[in-house]
């Protein structure tokens, strides 16, 4: 029984890793995603096309495959821990999805906003930065919350490159205790609680910052 308690605390430690991977991947995807969305909407033809190709290709692939390819690719260039490589790989994948989300949101901002900003004498960049983007981000909140929940769940996939997040630990616990159902079941439960609280939190964000037009 003592053993069990120790093993399950081991599992719980994976929670931190899971959350860490998720936050890094989401933030990475956020910054790059907005950047790519801006390129797609406001960039020159070349930049815009490249961004479109990136988005289309990545979104056509299974996330596991993207993680594998990027992990192998990243390891050849730079020596990072599996944790970071995995987080960044997941981040690159999320970038593609987030760029679509933000692109849609930017395009939803009424055209008149840009016109009015330019008429005030704001440069294109200032208009994007102070008028378009703030509104686009708020428009994107529902879709982004969805993506956040997905990244949280997909963080389990970095298991394949050996990151000691919850799934890998559950596997270890399962092997040690020979109780796979309980091991994986508890892991599932923890994921469920995580997803549930994250959704609640994001719902609150959505309600609070909803843009009334």
């Amino acid at each position, binding site marked *: 029984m003592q053993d069990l308690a120790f093993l399950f605390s081991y599992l719980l430690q994976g929670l931190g890793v899971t959350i860490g991977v998720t936050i890094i991947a989401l933030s990475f995807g956020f910054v790059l995603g907005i950047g790519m969305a801006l390129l797609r909407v406001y960039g020159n033809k070349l930049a815009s096309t490249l961004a479109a190709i990136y988005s289309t*290709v990545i979104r056509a692939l299974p996330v596991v*495959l993207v993680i594998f390819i990027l992990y192998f690719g990243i390891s050849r260039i730079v020596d990072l821990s599996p944790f970071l490589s995995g987080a960044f790989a997941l981040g690159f994948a999320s970038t593609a999805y987030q760029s679509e989300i933000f692109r849609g949101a930017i395009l939803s901002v009424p055209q008149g906003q840009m016109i009015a900003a330019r008429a005030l004498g704001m440069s294109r960049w200032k208009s994007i930065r102070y008028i378009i983007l703030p509104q686009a981000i708020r428009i994107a909140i529902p879709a982004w919350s969805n993506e956040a929940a997905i990244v949280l*769940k*997909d963080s389990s996939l970095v298991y*394949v490159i050996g990151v000691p997040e919850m799934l890998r630990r559950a596997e270890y616990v399962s092997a040690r205790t020979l109780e796979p159902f309980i091991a*994986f079941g508890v892991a599932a439960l923890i994921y469920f609680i995580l997803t549930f609280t994250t959704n609640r939190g994001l719902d609150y964000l959505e309600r609070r910052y909803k843009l009334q037009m």
Partner: protein
Amino acid sequence: MESLLTLLQEVLPDLLQGTLVTLQLTVVALAIGLAVGLPAALVRVYGGRVPRWLAVAYIEIFRGTPLVVQLFVVYYGLPDLGITFSRMAAAFVTLGLNSGAYQAEYFRGAIQAVGSGQMTAARALGMTQWQAIRYIILPQAIKLALPAWSNEAISMIKYTAVVFLIAVPDLMGKAKILGGRNFNYMELYIIAAVIYILLVFIATRLVRTIERKLYTPGLEMEAERH
């Protein structure tokens, strides 16, 4: 380029076998998902207190946990309770139930989008709830859910990839095995990636053509989030 062609010659047959398995998984998962998801959505909207609660529990659990974890619980965990599945069966069941939960949400949204006025009018004509659902609500809801459903269908091709983790010989699984022979994982994963891209491309084209044929003016819904 010589070596690329040689490589392709070597691996393509196996990879194509894997692709067939992938497609098999996709179709079966979607079918199971439909068979489970649509009723779940109906129960969710029209059911009594207890059935509704059960439907919600099913939907929230399968949408709130990672697919991989579900797969492991089914394949590694259930034998503990006396339920053993073969790899393929576990894959089908898990993918199917998982898809069912997401499809249930799409259908629920579509049913609600049809509007309660339709049900009211149907009942006023003297139809039972079931008749109203069958002849008035469902036909409209299914048309409304089509865009989201077809997105799910196309995405399913990607989702099936995780089954390689329980050694199912799908495209991803085959790529891993072949990569292990000569340790040229990267090359094989890239070839697999190209195949996935082609699959998704073809599936997207197919879906667009079908959508256009089934398009009914006036029956549209806001594009699903995701």
